[in-house]
């Protein structure tokens, strides 16, 4: 039903965009009506991009989603309360107890300062809006801006039509929606907009060769660097493009003006962001930029000398330059190689290395591999996240080559690298999304204009003639603006394409890509158009459905359909956090697996041991080890960290409530193997194989002893079997694992259950303090109790025989 209410405006936009091309077809190029249509369409696209992301607020409520956004939100709140300088120097003693975290120096400040700035402006306008609302709506706001940036980027590449189509695609591409729905207050939500803006500015500088745009590029890049670690994608992509241009002989003033100042000013920009700092010149990620900077200068030096010197001397000069150049380059190469090989990771950060070598993380950094969004994507996720775009993008790739301009070369390179990266990590589908949308937009706009041309063609002959004419003109004078041939119908299209595309002097050429210049028969064209629109409608429907159903869940509140179709809401997380914030001493330390760290600090307002900023592997490993150790040892570990409360997330009880489904699969028992792995990576007393039964992860009676004794197992399944049998299944049947738990009945000695949420999703335990008395320590002089004196005060649980009941409570 949500689909129905939204589809009309969406398809309306889709048709407007094509209407736009049609209208601009009829009028003379650059006319005010055409540009007005473009502007209106663009506004509609931006509104659509924003509106489609509001499902989460409508269906749920205006809350911050997931994990990382909670940290951003907390810092933003701090910013609004304490001001800029204090935030810049924010030392957070609430996280990573007892290490603390220098928040100011370890975060990308772009998002937070942007939200803070918006809040400030609204305050100045006497608009008493709460900072949380701003944070919630940052994603939708910036995706509108992203659509704008995409339009301008594609306009530079190919013209208005491609720009509008791409903007329409990016506006509702599911992959991007997933990270920018209202409430998803995450770095990526603004970073994608910044990314596309940087690309636009780069291409713009390429096309205009103007320092004005180069300066704008600096600011765009500065914002990007301040916003997201993904800036390293840019700092490698631009050199690749520059290098490709040099190799392809496309050296131009534009290239120099775009690239050289970027390399230097961009490095300065990165240096100015504390979280990157010296890394901007010391890590291998950034070396490509400087290397290409050198190569570019060499290329220009040769070119310049060639222009300045008479040809004969030039030959001689070339020899000299080559000799000197090779020597210098050799020395630099040796130095850099020496520097790079001195570091075990060859100067790359672990995260980058796991991109270059996809098996690296799983081999060496379990903490990176443990995050689900760092896994390689399944094929289905390409379909799910990109849908129609997956089909259109390859066509767009072909279209980008006809003709190949500096800008479209850039688009091609961007797409190719993004495809590779998205294949390594699900998370980087996000980088692929704009590339794919641009290519798809390109393909769509080409296809549409070709089909409409066919439909409105008076006759095949005319079209063929005009096609060949255009082809001829394109081939003959690629550097000149398209000529005005007699065949008006074709010329109009060529002119329209060139009209707004100031960038592409040879834009006329694309109208005549070889054989496809021949128009289709009218009915075939109609059928093709109908098919295309049907596909577009499917895409819109799919995107809206995905936006509404899949990506709007805030993950902190869960919703499931029950057997009878009614909706059941699980608000256990907030229940538990709220319990913590009201019942636990304000200075208590709360331990949990790192996934919940940000939420705990933000919502429960308590100090945590580890959180989602996984900067200290050892500390996380300590918590992982504590979860893996038996009760006594783990309570000692927790006490040594001053931890008073521990909570675990448990999903098996939900199956009982619902009677359907498998419960909540991303609970701590399912994450436990990662805890063991990460803990074992640092502390050799934890061995993964001890927790596996011949390589299998079991919780039933075949589970090994270490597993059954582990604190995680005990805290998760404590009293679980007492909840009774489940739909014919035995006591203690775990629907998530589809096993009957192996140790149903036990008591806790060093922990005390203090809170369990309504559906048992969050179970909070208190770590009991060290016992006041020392009882039953090993004593070689102890005399065994005599006949009749069966004194066994601390008997193991479940043994009802041995003691006078009077002494038990």
């Amino acid at each position, binding site marked *: 039903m949500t689909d129905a209410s939204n589809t009309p405006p969406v398809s309306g936009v889709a048709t407007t965009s094509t209407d736009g091309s049609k209208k601009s077809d009829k009028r003379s190029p650059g006319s005010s009506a055409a540009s007005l249509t473009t502007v209106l369409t663009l506004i509609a696209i931006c509104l659509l991009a924003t509106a489609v992301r509001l499902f989460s607020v409508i269906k749920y409520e205006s809350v911050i989603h997931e994990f990382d956004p909670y940290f951003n939100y907390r810092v933003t709140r701090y910013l609004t309360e304490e001001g800029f300088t204090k935030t810049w120097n924010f030392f957070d003693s609430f996280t990573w107890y007892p290490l603390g975290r220098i928040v100011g120096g370890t975060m990308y400040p772009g998002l937070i300062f942007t939200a803070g700035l918006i809040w400030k402006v609204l305050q100045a306008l006497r608009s008493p809006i709460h900072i949380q609302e701003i944070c919630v709506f940052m994603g939708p706001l910036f995706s509108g801006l992203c659509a704008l940036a995409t339009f301008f980027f594609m306009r530079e590449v190919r013209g208005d039509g491609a720009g509008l189509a791409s903007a329409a695609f990016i506006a509702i591409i599911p992959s991007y929606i997933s990270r920018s729905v209202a409430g998803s207050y995450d770095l990526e939500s603004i970073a994608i907009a910044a990314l596309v803006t940087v690309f636009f500015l780069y291409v713009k500088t390429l096309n205009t060769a103007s320092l*004005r745009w180069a300066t704008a590029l600096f600011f765009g890049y500065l914002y990007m660097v301040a916003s997201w670690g993904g800036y390293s994608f840019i700092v490698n992509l631009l050199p690749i493009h520059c290098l490709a241009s040099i190799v392809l002989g496309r050296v131009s003033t534009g290239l120099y003006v775009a690239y050289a100042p970027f390399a230097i000013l961009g490095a300065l920009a990165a*240096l*100015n962001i504390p979280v990157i700092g010296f890394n901007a010149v010391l890590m291998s990620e950034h070396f490509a930029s400087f290397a290409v900077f050198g190569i570019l200068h060499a290329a220009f030096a040769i070119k310049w*000398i060639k222009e*300045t010197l008479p040809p004969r001397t030039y030959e*001689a000069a070339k020899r000299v330059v080559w000799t000197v150049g090779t020597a210098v380059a050799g020395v630099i190469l040796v130095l850099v190689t020496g520097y790079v090989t001195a570091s075990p990771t060859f100067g790359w950060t672990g995260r980058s290395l796991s991109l270059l070598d996809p098996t690296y993380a799983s081999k060496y950094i379990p903490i990176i591999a443990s995050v689900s969004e760092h896994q390689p994507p399944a094929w289905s996720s390409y379909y799910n996240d990109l849908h129609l775009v997956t089909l259109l993008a390859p066509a767009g790739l072909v279209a980008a080559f006809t003709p190949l301009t500096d800008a479209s070369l850039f688009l091609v390179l961007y797409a190719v690298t993004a495809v590779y990266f998205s294949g390594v990590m699900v998370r980087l589908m996000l980088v692929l999304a704009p590339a794919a949308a641009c290519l798809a937009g390109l393909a769509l706009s080409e296809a549409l204009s070709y089909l409409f041309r066919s439909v409105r063609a008076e006759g095949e002959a005319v079209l063929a003639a005009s096609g060949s004419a255009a082809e001829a003109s394109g081939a003959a004078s690629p550097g000149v603006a398209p000529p005005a041939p007699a065949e008006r119908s074709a010329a109009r299209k060529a002119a329209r394409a060139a009209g707004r595309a100031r960038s592409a002097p040879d834009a006329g050429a694309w109208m005549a890509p070889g054989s496809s210049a021949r128009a289709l028969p009218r009915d075939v064209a109609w059928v093709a158009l109908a098919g295309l629109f049907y596909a577009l409608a499917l895409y819109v429907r799919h995107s809206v459905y995905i936006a509404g159903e899949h990506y709007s869940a805030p993950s902190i509140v869960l919703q499931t359909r029950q057997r009878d179709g009614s909706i059941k809401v699980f608000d256990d997380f907030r229940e538990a956090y709220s319990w913590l914030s009201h019942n636990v001493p304000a200075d208590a330390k709360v331990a949990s697996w790192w996934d919940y760290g940000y939420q705990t600090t933000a919502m429960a307002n308590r100090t945590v041991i580890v959180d989602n900023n996984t900067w200290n592997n050892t500390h996380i490993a300590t918590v992982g080890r504590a979860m893996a150790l038996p009760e006594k040892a783990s309570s000692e570990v927790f006490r040594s960290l001053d931890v008073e409360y521990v909570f675990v997330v448990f999903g098996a009880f939900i199956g009982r409530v619902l009677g359907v489904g498998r419960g909540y699969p991303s609970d701590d028992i399912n994450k436990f193997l990662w805890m063991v792995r990460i803990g074992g990576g640092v502390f050799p007393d934890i061995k993964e194989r001890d927790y596996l039964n011949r390589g299998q992860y079991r919780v039933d009676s075949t589970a090994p002893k270490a597993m059954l004794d582990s604190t995680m197992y005990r805290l998760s399944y404590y009293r679980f079997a007492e909840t009774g049998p489940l739909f014919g299944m035995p006591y203690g049947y775990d629907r998530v694992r589809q096993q009957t738990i192996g140790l149903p009945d036990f008591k806790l000695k060093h922990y005390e259950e203090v809170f369990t949420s309504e559906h048992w999703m969050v179970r909070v335990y208190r770590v009991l303090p060290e016992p006041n008395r020392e009882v039953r320590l090993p004593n070689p002089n102890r005399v065994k109790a005599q006949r009749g004196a069966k004194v066994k005060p601390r008997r193991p649980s479940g043994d009802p025989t041995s003691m006078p009941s009077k002494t038990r409570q």
Partner: protein
Amino acid sequence: MATLHTAKQVATAFQREYAKTPAKLKVLDAFSGLAIATALLQFVYAVLIGSFPFNAFLAGFFCCIGAFVLSVCLRMQVDPEDMSGKTERAFTEYALAMCVLFLAALNYVG
């Protein structure tokens, strides 16, 4: 020996050709040369004395390289034949970019 000879030959040829460059561009070239020289000087200083305030070194070094690069950009845009308003506009942009560069460098230097 032969290389040295050719190098000499090239140098003279270059001098001859370069003399034709307008004075405006020569000024710009001088500035570029100064920037590069300053950058090299700083590099040598850092190698000899040690790069302790690394941020200051980077700021100084990148500032010089940046100034050089921007000047080269301007030089490319300036058409030796036509020194009209277009050049002045290019220069305005250049000045703007330089200001941004200096700001960024000063922000980072200390």
